[in-house]
């Protein structure tokens, strides 16, 4: 069975997205970040074109939050270069801040402020602020504007953070596990708002989450962060099209996985040999099944299957 280090991930090229006509929203080169002696991000190269929803996937501790905070200048970096809207991101400053919305993983700002006061305070800094949207979301998400932030539950704070992030109608929305604390209704409502926002031209969303169903609903491009690097960024449809889960079954079981072109991961479960293969050659697989005296089953993996196998 292949080990993680042996996975031929390189075949999924980084930045393989077709570039849009306009300049990328985000360009990262050789980004490095460590906490004391622990290196979290190792030479990340990543480009995010405008007008896409990017789902940033990675296991716990992979560095998703760190990467998102570094991109916005909220965490100092050790090396490399970040360009946001074509300008180097040395510190979060300048006119482009009007174009950025951010939902942090945990919202613990200003506990003494009331919800309405907090939104008024924030709105005062922005040239665009969608007041009707704010009022509608507060109402439909049952957030009491007179309540203090410190008295809100974690889920309510998360809703408030989302309202605050999308109200300025940003061109780039960065969301760090925004739905982790939300109930299913709020999650769906949030996704609906997000998709609505995405219908407007030029809007880009970078979205870290473990709930792969949301990324499937948003038809997001998937970026996988592993071992401190972005392993690939590919549209979900492309992943669905080229990835196949091949199951070879035979009574006597398997000692080891056979060499197959495009193999990303192999698992042996009793009499089943599960192979995750990119762009499989069906004729070769059928020949392999016949040669091994095994039955062949071909499945399209879900995003969650892919995440479990690749992350």
């Amino acid at each position: 069975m292949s080990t993680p280090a042996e996975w031929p991930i390189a075949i999924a090229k980084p930045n393989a997205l077709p570039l849009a006509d306009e300049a990328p929203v985000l360009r990262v080169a050789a980004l490095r970040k460590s906490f004391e002696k622990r290196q979290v991000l190792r030479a990340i190269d990543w480009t995010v074109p405008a007008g896409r929803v990017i789902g940033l996937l990675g296991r716990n501790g992979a560095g998703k939050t760190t990467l998102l905070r570094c991109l916005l200048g909220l965490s100092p970096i050790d090396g490399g270069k970040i360009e946001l809207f074509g300008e180097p991101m040395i510190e979060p400053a300048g006119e482009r801040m009007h174009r950025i919305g951010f939902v942090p993983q945990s919202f613990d700002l200003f506990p003494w402020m009331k919800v309405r006061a907090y939104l008024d305070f924030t709105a005062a800094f922005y040239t665009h602020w969608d007041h009707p949207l704010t009022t509608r979301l507060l109402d439909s998400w049952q957030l009491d504007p007179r309540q203090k932030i410190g008295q809100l539950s974690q889920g309510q704070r998360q809703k408030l953070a989302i309202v605050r992030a999308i109200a300025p109608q940003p061109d780039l929305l960065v969301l760090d596990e925004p739905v982790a604390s939300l109930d299913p209704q709020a999650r769906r409502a949030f996704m609906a708002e997000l998709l609505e926002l995405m219908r407007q031209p030029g809007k880009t969303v970078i979205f870290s989450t473990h709930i792969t169903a949301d990324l499937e609903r948003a038809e997001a491009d998937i970026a996988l962060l592993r071992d401190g690097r972005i392993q690939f960024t590919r549209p979900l449809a492309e992943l669905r099209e080229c990835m196949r889960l091949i199951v070879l079954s035979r009574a006597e079981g398997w000692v080891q996985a056979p060499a197959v072109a495009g193999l990303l991961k192999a698992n042996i479960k009793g009499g089943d040999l599960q192979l995750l293969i990119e762009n499989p050659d069906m004729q070769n697989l059928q020949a392999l099944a016949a040669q091994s005296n095994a039955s062949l089953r071909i499945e399209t993996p879900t995003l969650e299957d892919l995440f479990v196998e690749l992350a």
Partner: protein
Amino acid sequence: MKAVWQLWLQPWKKVPVLAVLVSLIWLGAMVTFCFAASHQVKLSALAVGMIAFGSWFWHVGQGQILRELCRPESFLMPYFTRRLACAAAINLTQWVLLPACISSLLGLPPAWLIAAALLCAAALGLAIGCGRRAGLLIWLLFIGAGWMPQLAAQAWYAALNSPLTAPLLLLIAILILHISLRPLLRIDDRETEASPLESMNLGRTNDTGGAPRLPRSAFNKRIGSLFDHTSQWALDQALHSYRQRPGSAQRLTLIRRLLLPHDNPLAIALRLALVACFVTIYFFAAIHRQHFNAAVVGAYATMLALTRFPQLGRGMQRMRPNLADLYLTLAPTTQAQYQKTLADALLILVPVSVLTAVAYTLLGIVLVHAAEPVQMLTTTIIVTTAASLVALAVHLIGPEGSFGRGLVNVVVIFGTMATYWGGYWLIGALGYVFGGGLMLIIALSFGISVWFAAQREYQRRRPCFDAPVA
């Protein structure tokens, strides 16, 4: 301007009482200026003093607000720092430029000297509010003045007439502002959170009221790491002991090591040594030429030892959600049993406080060459034992709100000091046997009965695991 207006409004929302009082002081100063202009010009000096006093307080509040506002996420708001600078300019006009100009028109020393002095007062207040020790620099002046009052008076008159005073004050103000504001306006990775019940008395006591923790100095980091080592060592020892003999006493020690990580013998010794160092430095710098009443020193030592309890009250509130984990781990038969376990575990703070008070009193005795060391020590032991029991009791079952809690703290502290002085006098008047015995009976019976009543009430209550309302 909307953003600047919102920034200007924050003190009125966060600290409305301070905002109202300070605004009244400012208005009072303006009225005094008007009165000085029409009647007595000398009064304008009083008005400047009022402005300096009000400015110091106002900027303490502003510093606290800045500490909460200047989170990394806030810098994502467009032109956040620029708007902060605009709000600061309005502040500067209100508290420095306008009073300086008015006083200059009224014939006080040059406007720039008053402006520099007022800027210094504002910077010192801001430093205190931001949690920087630079704000304590003002005490250097008072220490110096107390040490050599005649020289201080000469220096004061020389400074008033020197052209170098204003630039020097301006430089000091800029330096203090730089030290206070730079960490707030710089984006850094967050410091790791400490346990709410840790106590080092060195600025890492989790008493930030929700404000982000400022980056610690190298010295504080080293001391913090020493305290953390002692906690780990004590926990390892307790675990080892529990594995060897899993009795109820060992279990209680283990709970204490979890709940009160900095109340193990090594950490207590380290804390005592550090406080002794600071007190000695303070003593030699500030008061070594003055005569101090031994009773005052003893009462102060007792008060210092009791400061642990308000922090315990706040910490226990913040720990509540995590205590659910402890509850499930302990798996008590009844809720009252769990409450009793907690109360028993926290009771260790009483001997710790008595020991601390005795150590501080001994230090005080040595430093002030006290004439009646035994009398001081006897009073300290009796009063601290009783006061610790009462303080622990009121923090177990006392009010939850910050106002009620603050009130309770004030009553406990003042009550303790009054008891100390009363007890000291009683022993002096009636002798150790009668005076000491009487005080022992009154103070300890009060302390023990309050503790038992509170403990019973605490056991009667259901455990609460709700996060405290901010």
